[in-house]
């Protein structure tokens, strides 16, 4: 049978060729190509950036690029902590409610204009404005009146009314679910409006609003948080016109002669003392914060023409072009580190106003950072080049950055192997490669494959409404052998039973060990917040203990009786190989230790998110990565009763109480102690089961220098350069 043999033979040959020709043992993963351009980095990004606009972009694919394109008051250094950038210094009030940033004078936008504090204020206003609907608004959830600004219920009183002086910040008295009242900021004009830049002539308009079309006032020139107009007695208004994707622009206020809601009457009350911008709390007021709430003040009635929602209702002020003040309602030690995050990175008003949704594209984008965007081909790559207007040229080693937008992990690794890119974005190494990467160099890891800790934790969430018996939850937690999971993940992950992630204590230096109050022999992790000064050691969790697990299970069985579940369903989302492996492992482990039947389900991401939010799950996989080393804000606050991301919907009064107390505590060590006590409660009640602390896996060519590996996965990409003589100094 010649044909059959022929076919089988060909199949066998192919199969044999594949299996036999393994990748040869070598020091590095893939042949190391020669360095062609020492100042051009080709970077395999983890996908296509969702949006480069700091107010809109959210993903890990966009964030490192955003940080390279847009400078911030502070920036993330090589160690992932905030360091001064646009702000050369800052003053923090003792009660940690206000920070005054002093900006440098030599920062410029790529179009030549000097960068001022008004640009910083503009971004904060923009992120919190309801029209923008920015998904990053919750980074600023500590700013005074941010919630009422977002929901459009805060106003400034324009004239003396009802015993209150002009300039008082008031809130509209609206029932929470009532129909929102008509917008006081709405205006019309009897003639066409020429939207233009502040102080420009009408001929320079880039958009013209037809007469009698409503626009919304966003800012007025000359007021506390807005830039000054050309003439103090003739203010200008920054308005929004809802045409197509929207457009903003300045017009003289006098042109806006129609006020549709001028005569509508509103009930308003002055805001509470702690929300009053520019006001320092007196001792009485501080005491009043913890006293039982006084009766609500009687609202006064005001006409629409006397109310306007303006930036000054937020806790921001710009006393002069190079000073920026921001205020929090509660003591907030994280203000300085948050100033490095995207929600506070200034954006160029002139570019944004013309195309609010699409300004961050090559051609229209204006940048302030070390790199500038020159090309963005969808799902292919982005090209960034050195920005000649950046103030810190000495810090920039890179002339050109090409970021490839492939979203397939294996394709990224293969492209790296074949010499197509110089480094793979941290944590984008495929799970299935890790075993080979850890042993491919004659049984040792390849020299260009490294592992570093990451500020994130992988855990399972348990629906506490369904599994309300704490013993059952504890049993499930105690039955998992975490280090085993970490061992087959091959990524150097650290199996943890504790929750807040940190660096392994064994890897800390002496100064940090002292700050953390531990010795090198202490097991577990610790989160260094300030080197040598402030450290957080999470409380220990429910470590693997078969006897204890079975004891808890017995208790649960006794208490639940018939209600004991016959089968438990564990859900994870599609898209990452590791989730499935871990799910199958946990299934096997729970069966073996507890005799509990577990069924695994996987869901597509959207459906998974929806279901876990709506409590349509029993146990599900979750992961959380922090953007700053702040255990309270980034990790522990998540579990408050009713918090947005509290998927188990776990509620514990003592936990919330401790967090409230912590929020009012100023001394950082005392504050962290309260946070730790709260976390201890949470971990022992097991609404979540921590599994491992994330690590980042890196594939970086040996000739790449200056690519930092930090905790939060945000390397300053502009400091990278390639060394053609790498062999002489590995």
């Amino acid at each position, binding site marked *: *049978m010649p*044909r*059959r043999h022929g*076919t089988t033979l060909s*199949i066998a040959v192919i*199969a044999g060729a*594949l*299996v036999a020709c*393994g*990748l040869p043992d070598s020091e590095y993963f893939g042949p190391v190509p020669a360095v062609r351009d020492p100042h051009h980095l080709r970077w395999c990004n983890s996908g296509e950036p969702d949006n480069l606009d700091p107010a809109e972009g959210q993903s890990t694919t966009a964030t490192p690029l955003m940080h390279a394109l847009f400078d911030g008051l502070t920036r993330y250094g090589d160690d992932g902590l905030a360091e001064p950038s646009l702000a050369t210094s800052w003053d923090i009030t003792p009660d940690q409610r206000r920070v005054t940033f002093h900006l440098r004078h030599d920062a410029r936008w790529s179009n030549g204009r000097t960068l001022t504090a008004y640009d910083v204020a503009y971004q904060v206003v923009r992120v919190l404005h309801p029209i923008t609907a920015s998904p990053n608004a919750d980074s600023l959830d500590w700013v005074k009146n941010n919630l009422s600004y977002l929901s459009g219920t805060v106003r400034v009183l324009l004239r003396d009314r009802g015993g209150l002086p002009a300039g008082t910040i008031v809130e509209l008295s609206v029932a929470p679910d009532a129909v929102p009242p008509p917008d006081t900021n709405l205006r019309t004009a009897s003639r066409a409006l020429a939207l233009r830049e502040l102080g420009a002539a009408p001929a320079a308009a880039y958009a013209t609003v037809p007469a009698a079309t409503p626009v919304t006032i966003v800012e007025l020139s000359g007021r506390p948080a807005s830039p000054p107009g050309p003439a103090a007695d003739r203010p200008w208004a920054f308005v929004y016109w809802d045409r197509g994707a929207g457009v903003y622009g300045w017009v003289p206020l006098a042109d806006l002669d129609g006020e549709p809601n001028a005569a509508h009457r509103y009930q308003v009350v002055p805001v509470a003392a702690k929300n009053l911008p520019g006001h320092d709390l007196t001792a009485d007021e501080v005491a009043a914060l913890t006293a039982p709430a006084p009766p609500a003040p009687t609202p006064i009635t005001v006409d629409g023409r006397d109310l306007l929602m303006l930036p000054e209702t937020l806790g921001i002020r710009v006393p002069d072009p190079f000073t920026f003040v921001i205020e929090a309602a509660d003591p907030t030690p994280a203000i300085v580190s948050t100033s490095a995050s995207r929600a506070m990175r200034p954006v160029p008003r002139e570019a944004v106003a013309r195309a609010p949704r699409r300004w961050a594209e090559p051609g229209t984008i204006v940048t302030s950072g070390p790199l500038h965007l020159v090309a963005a081909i969808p799902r292919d790559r982005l090209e960034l080049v050195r920005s000649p207007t950046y103030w810190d040229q000495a810090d920039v080693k890179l002339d050109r950055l090409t970021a490839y937008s492939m979203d*397939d*992990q*294996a394709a990224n*690794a*293969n492209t790296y*192997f074949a010499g197509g890119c110089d480094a793979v974005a941290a944590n984008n190494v*495929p*799970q*299935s*490669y890790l*075993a*080979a*990467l850890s042993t*491919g160099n004659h049984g040792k890891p390849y020299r260009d494959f490294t592992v570093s800790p990451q500020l994130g934790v992988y855990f399972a969430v348990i629906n506490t409404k369904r599994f309300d018996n704490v013993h059952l939850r504890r049993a499930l937690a105690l039955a998992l052998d975490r280090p*085993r999971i970490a*061992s*087959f993940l*091959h990524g150097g992950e650290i199996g943890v039973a504790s929750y807040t992630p940190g660096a392994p204590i064994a890897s800390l230096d002496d100064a940090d060990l002292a700050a953390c109050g531990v010795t090198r022999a202490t097991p577990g992790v610790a989160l260094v917040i300030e080197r040598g000064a402030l450290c957080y050691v999470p409380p220990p969790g429910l470590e693997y203990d078969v006897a204890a697990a079975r004891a808890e299970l017995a208790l649960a069985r006794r208490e639940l009786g018939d209600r004991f579940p016959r089968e438990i369903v564990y859900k994870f989302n*599609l*898209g990452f*190989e590791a989730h*499935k*492996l871990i*799910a*199958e*492992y946990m*299934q*096997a482990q729970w069966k073996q230790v507890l005799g509990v039947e577990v069924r*695994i*389900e*996987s*869901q*597509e991401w959207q*459906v998974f998110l929806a279901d876990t939010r709506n409590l349509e799950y029993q146990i599900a996989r979750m992961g959380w990565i922090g953007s700053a080393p702040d255990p309270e804000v980034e990790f522990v606050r998540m579990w408050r009763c009713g918090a947005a991301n509290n998927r188990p919907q776990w509620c514990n009064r003592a936990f919330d109480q401790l967090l409230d107390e912590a929020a009012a505590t100023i001394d950082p060590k005392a504050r962290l102690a309260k946070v730790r006590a709260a976390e201890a409660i949470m971990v022992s009640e097991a609404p979540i089961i921590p599994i491992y602390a994330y690590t980042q896996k890196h594939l970086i060519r040996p000739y790449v220098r200056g690519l930092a590996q930090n905790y939060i996965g945000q390397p300053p990409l502009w400091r990278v350069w390639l060394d053609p003589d790498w062999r002489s100094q590995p």
Partner: protein
Amino acid sequence: MTLAATRPRSPARDAWRRLRTNRMAVICGGLFVAIVVACLVGPAICAAFGLDATTLDLDLLAAPPSRAHPLGTDALGRDLLVRVLVGGRIAILISLTATGVAIVIGVAWGAIAAYAGGRVDYVMMRIVDTLYGFPTIVFVVVIRAVFDTQSLVSLFALIGAISWLTMARIVRGQVLTLRHREFVEAARALGARPTRILFRHIVPNTLGAVIVYATVLVPQTMLVEAFLSFIGLGVQAPLASWGTLVTEGATQIAVSPWVLVGPGVAMGLTIFALNFLGDGLRDALDPQSRRL
């Protein structure tokens, strides 16, 4: 014309004889049967050697073929030989049942359209024509994702529901020619109801064409299942099929090629065998449409 001295030869007998002379087709048929049998009893045999589909051999993670694991292990340390056999069960089950669904719908549709004739036939066939142009794969993707069904039943029902079109056309063609034969006239004269005529007399005579097309449909549905599993909308964990195994293997080809080769070869051989068998059956059952 002389009276035949031997037993009259039925068409089925003729077909079988012709098939038997086509050695390749017979071998492929045997191959398919062998694969099915291996998938059914293989895992039990492997268990005797200590290999099963769920044990994690954590010391030999992602290991190439060796004495302990003839096809190697995957990234979680599971033996691939058993996984391929167990995966085969699911893959073959899905494709057989999906083909069954397609047969049922297609035969019914084509037979009714051809027998009823006139307007009914026109409308029914226009629907088929329209659906032909419809990107059915997309349809399946949307339905699977939208209604988020995890069940196996809905999977093969759905695959079957998009695969019946050509079957309907074939059956219709057959029924059209059979409609005017004498045995049908006779049945009608006897007063039999149309449905009875259709399904008891006519349809069985189309069986030849149906079987031929069915052997082509089985590999087709197997490929559809593989495609769906590739997108993640096919078979779900902890069940595995060749589609899911191949998808896993595809991403690891650079470092662990054996993870793809095992299920890939199994799937390829099965599909090849069925296609060849289908060719052979077509030659045997309908000599006029010979491949020449």
